[in-house]
């Protein structure tokens, strides 16, 4: 019995170490300001997965709003088949984008409609143009955003809805000299609060093809879910395989424990 309690202590210690590391990481990143909004995401938890209809709405928000400034690197139009678009629909979506190609037989670069095999088109030809068009800041790639920020989906969602017209009291209390540089907007959740991207999501700026009401909250939920999928397209496979693997390991470890006890009877 004492061995078991020792084992439990070991496990707790390992868990304590890891939780400590994680908690400190989270602490280090949180600035002043309100806590992140935490919607009840469909992809949370051991059994979480994606809602394809929501992901398609999210793609509509991306291609209607975000697309004009933000790339989705490492993704291809063909990936959209994974969120329930048919092969023909994907072809149509791809063809609505122009992508650079070439050189042709005369040595000239040209543009052509994209095919499903093409990477999702970049909004700008290069970073210099992107900078020029966006007040000196390159709009970041969105395909890994949900992995690349502490807080992940919660952070993206909070940020999209986190704009304020005036600098709030708590910021001025912390720093009386705070003032927004020209061309920047105030955001509760952005580190330093001065964000280059103005507020994008306003009620009714687009129409959903499935007739959902395009409120700012709805669009933020949908596009954040879409970006979560863009960052972790493997999530559903991963969790499903994980459930089987854990179940299997628990059975195997149980058997090993029983067999080990049986054998060790001889030694006591």
């Amino acid at each position, binding site marked *: 019995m004492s061995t078991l309690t020792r084992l439990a202590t070991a496990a707790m210690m390992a868990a304590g170490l890891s939780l400590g590391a994680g908690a400190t990481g989270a602490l280090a990143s949180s600035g002043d300001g309100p806590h992140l909004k935490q919607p009840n995401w469909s992809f949370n938890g051991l059994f979480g997965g994606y809602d394809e209809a929501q992901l398609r709405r999210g793609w509509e928000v991306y291609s209607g709003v975000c697309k004009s400034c933000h790339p989705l690197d490492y993704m*291809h139009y*063909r990936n959209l088949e994974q969120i329930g678009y048919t092969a023909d629909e994907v072809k149509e979506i791809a063809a609505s984008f122009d992508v650079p190609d070439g050189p042709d037989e005369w040595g000239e670069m040209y543009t052509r409609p994209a*095919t*499903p*095999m093409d990477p999702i088109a970049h909004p700008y030809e290069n970073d210099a143009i992107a900078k020029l068009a966006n007040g000196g800041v390159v709009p970041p790639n969105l395909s890994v955003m949900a992995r690349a920020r502490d807080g992940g989906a919660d952070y993206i969602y909070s940020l999209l809805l986190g704009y304020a017209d005036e600098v709030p009291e708590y910021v001025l209390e912390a720093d009386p000299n705070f003032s927004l540089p020209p061309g920047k907007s105030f955001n509760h959740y952005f580190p330093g609060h001065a964000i280059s991207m103005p507020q994008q999501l306003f009620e009714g700026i687009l129409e959903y093809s499935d007739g959902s009401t395009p409120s700012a909250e709805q669009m933020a939920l949908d596009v954040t879910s879409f970006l979560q999928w863009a960052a972790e397209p493997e999530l559903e496979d991963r969790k499903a395989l994980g459930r089987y693997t854990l179940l*299997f*390991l628990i*059975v*195997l470890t149980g*058997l*090993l424990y*029983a*067999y080990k006890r*049986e*054998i060790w*009877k*001889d030694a*006591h």
Partner: protein
Amino acid sequence: MSQAVDSAGTADGESRRDFLLYATGAVGAVGTALAVWPFIDSMNPAKDVLALATVEVDLSPVAVGQAITVVWRGKPVFVRHRTPEDIEQAKAVDVSTLRDPETDEERTIKPEWLVMVGICTHLGCVPKGQKPSDPKGEWNGWFCVCHGSQYDTAGRIRKGPAPLNLPVPEYAFLDDTTIRIGEEG
């Protein structure tokens, strides 16, 4: 504790022990085998490679008598828009005299379009014959400069060391002037 020690020696204890040995061994072996699979499968073609396993080709710019070369799965594919003379020549051959007997109908879907992998069946060179200025050999088809294999207007081997005709890939017409190479329609 002392009761447990006693029971280990009995027949009951023995069979329990055997059961645990076989059950644990079997579960462990199955688990190890399953764990190996993801690693093996990772070496199969990745999704982006498979996505390029089919290629769609727009034939509309290719005039009669012209040929284009497209890349499919890393290999050149010859597409020739054959003239009526080409077709006639290909059909006129007595198939039984050929080294690799195939009729022209077996090698084409629409007679005016010949689609085949442009790799000589001898030792893997790319034969000449796509450009107007290229040597085309005695049968007005393709000529492999490596070892002198000659192919006719249906891409069949006629002379030289190559054993087989130029292979025709799986392809299908999506419409009158578009083909998809890599899978049948």
